[in-house]
């Protein structure tokens, strides 16, 4: 990592002048949560200064001062990341966008909304719904900021039908490392107008610029939806069913995978066993939760009938219907609680969110379970079966921290190597942060990693934006 200057009293005074006293924090006044995200196993790092920004101009003002003085700046939203992405490794300034939480304007003719980055995903989803619209990306963490979702190119459950966050970003206002303000993209449906810096910014994790406003694409809200739970005796037959759903032209909105362990944990945590652990007195090995949307009930019934037919042929134990509002609420709150349920009964936790070709999911899961047994680490997993994105958690309640880290590193090293062998990618939607940087480098190879570093250098020649994340350019100089 590059070397940086400390925040002197004079610099602190100038920073305070930008945001005012009430949104400037120093020393003990800084919220300790700013030292970590939701994966504290990757370490805690306190900034010297934290500021809550409210406008693009304030962000620009902060960046100008930090750029002039070579002070590192780490942008933070709600802090719900899982790879240490918003953690200020070298100290410096944490710039928090949580107060930039205004939904600015709906353009109902073009079906877009202009928002600030600190708007929470759940608030955008609810507000769009009140306008009869839907914001399709649906990452599990609903209290994440949309700015954070863009920074990590978050995916979520509906990616099977609608794609990921990137597909819904039309335009961005970005503050560059030196404080300049640029506009990327326009409210247009397609573009072939030079390099897409817009798409480069999406998924750049605050290392290339700071997003301060965004125009997001919306779609008309589907009239109705229904989900089917399809239980199988084992993981293999469960996953093998995924391509059959797609081939049957059923166009599901999401296909979520859950194994029996996670269903048990979730039921204990939520107190609501909506997903059955047995069907007709037979133990369920793994299940798919398949969701359809449509214009009327008849359309959904036809899709379910077809699903039922192919499920029977594929050896499914049954097809259960999640149709009532109460059951939908229970099912999705159980599904959304998987990570929280794991966290609730685990002292030490680490995770990976690899994405592999769908047909390789069983091979990968069998491999990772073997590694867990070999290292004495409890493995919990769930994921988006429709797109091959798996969330795998290494858990322990008994080991000392250092021993846990040592064993998990063995698992991670081997698992990422296996992922590469299966033609997978390091992260499906949680991004790289500092936790997965080494694995990204191994995965993409030196040439590509170097190119990433060169791009970083163009945007941020002094490496002050979120240092030590994604592709620490100083490593490849």
């Amino acid at each position, binding site marked *: 990592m590059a070397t940086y200057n400390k925040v002197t009293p004079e610099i602190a005074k100038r920073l305070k002048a930008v945001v005012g006293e009430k949104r400037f*924090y*120093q*020393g*003990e*006044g800084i919220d300790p949560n700013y030292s970590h995200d939701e994966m504290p196993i990757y370490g805690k790092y306190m900034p010297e200064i934290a500021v809550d920004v409210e406008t693009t101009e304030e962000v620009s003002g902060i960046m100008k001062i930090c750029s002039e003085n070579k002070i590192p700046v780490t942008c933070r939203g709600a802090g719900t990341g899982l790879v240490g992405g918003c953690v200020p490794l070298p100290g410096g300034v944490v710039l928090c966008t949580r107060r930039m939480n205004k939904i600015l304007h709906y353009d109902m003719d073009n079906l877009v909304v202009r928002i600030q980055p600190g708007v929470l995903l759940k608030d955008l989803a609810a507000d769009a719904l009140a306008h009869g619209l839907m914001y399709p990306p649906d990452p599990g963490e609903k209290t994440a900021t949309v700015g954070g979702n863009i920074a990590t190119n978050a995916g979520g459950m509906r990616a099977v039908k609608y794609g990921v966050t990137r597909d819904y970003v039309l335009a961005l206002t970005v503050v560059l490392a030196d404080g300049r303000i640029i506009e990327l993209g326009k409210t247009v449906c397609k573009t072939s107008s030079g390099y897409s810096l817009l798409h480069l910014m999406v998924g750049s994790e605050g290392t290339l610029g700071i997003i301060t406003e965004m125009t997001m694409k919306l779609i008309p809200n589907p009239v109705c939806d229904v989900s*089917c*739970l399809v239980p199988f005796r084992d993981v293999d037959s469960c996953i093998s069913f995924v391509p059959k759903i797609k081939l049957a032209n059923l166009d599901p909105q999401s296909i979520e995978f859950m194994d029996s362990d996670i269903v048990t944990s979730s039921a204990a945590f939520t107190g*609501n*066993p*909506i997903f*059955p652990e047995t069907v007709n007195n037979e133990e369920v090995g793994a299940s798919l939760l398949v969701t359809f949307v449509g214009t009327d009930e008849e359309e959904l*019934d036809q899709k*379910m*009938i077809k*699903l*039922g037919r192919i499920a029977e042929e594929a050896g499914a134990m*049954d*097809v*259960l*219907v*999640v*149709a*009532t*509002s*109460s*059951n939908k609420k229970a099912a999705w709150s159980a599904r959304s609680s998987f990570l929280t349920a794991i966290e609730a009964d685990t002292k030490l936790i680490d995770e990976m969110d690899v994405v592999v070709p769908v047909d390789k999911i069983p091979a990968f899961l069998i491999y990772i379970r073997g590694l867990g047994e070999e290292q004495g680490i409890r493995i919990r997993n769930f994921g988006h079966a429709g797109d091959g994105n798996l969330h795998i958690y290494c858990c322990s309640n008994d080991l000392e921290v250092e021993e846990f880290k040592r064993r998990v590193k063995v698992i991670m090293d081997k698992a990422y190597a296996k992922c590469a062998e299966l033609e997978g990618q390091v992260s499906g939607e949680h991004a790289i942060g500092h936790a997965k940087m080494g694995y990204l480098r191994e995965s993409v190879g030196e040439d590509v990693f170097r190119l990433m570093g060169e791009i970083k250098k163009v945007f941020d020649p002094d490496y002050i934006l979120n240092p030590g994340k994604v592709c620490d350019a100083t490593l490849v100089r």
Partner: protein
Amino acid sequence: MLNILVCVKQIPDVDLVKMDPETGNLIRTGVPTLTNPLDLNALEAAVQVKERYGGEITLITMGPPMAEETLRECLAVGGDDAILITGRPFGGADTLSTSYSIVMAADMKGKFDLIFCGKETMDGATGQMASQLAERFDASQISCCFTVDEIADGKVRATRTLETGKEVVEATMPCLITVEKDNFYGRLPNLKAYLDSKTAPITTYTENDIDGLDLRLIGVPGSGTIVPKIYPPELPEPGQIIRTGSPKTDVSRLLELLAEKGSI
């Protein structure tokens, strides 16, 4: 074979109902409905009994025609037959006239060995219906049922949940049972049952179809209570977060505030 009756009710989604501050009336227009969750627990208990001992489950509800949705939802998860009591004269009923109407309509179908009810509804929350029904059916009653342990020789043995522990009781049939939700989470319907429930026949009774129904005992005339006013509880003042910049000054500010309020 056991004849089992399960009483269910369609209610507005109480999380979404708002109150008109002027009139004190509940604003139900456009509010989605759902089946009273505790009734689904009662149905699950009944289905478990049916699976163990055999029998037939009749569902019964009183409400507007759209209450049929609730019956179909319950048919999909184990109900065999359904009765809807509907008509303007039944409107505005309190628990006294509702229990009368339900018993009169249920008698049309025959005699029941077991009657299952949710312990209360999420909208009215009086908790009176079960006891009134037990009285009118001339049935014994087991409330707070945790497990139905055995049914034999015209008797039901069940374990009840008490504040201090558990209690095993035995009651003669007919017996009305209200259940604790913990052991009786509702199940998801399977696809075939779900689709079949959409077209299943439902017996609909208006005030003219129920033998011996005394119109003076239904709806508003039959009600023993009136609700002159509903008002929301007064909410406590929202809390405030003290964040002055350092723990030391935070504590000083907290002490100031407590002193201002006379708490210290």
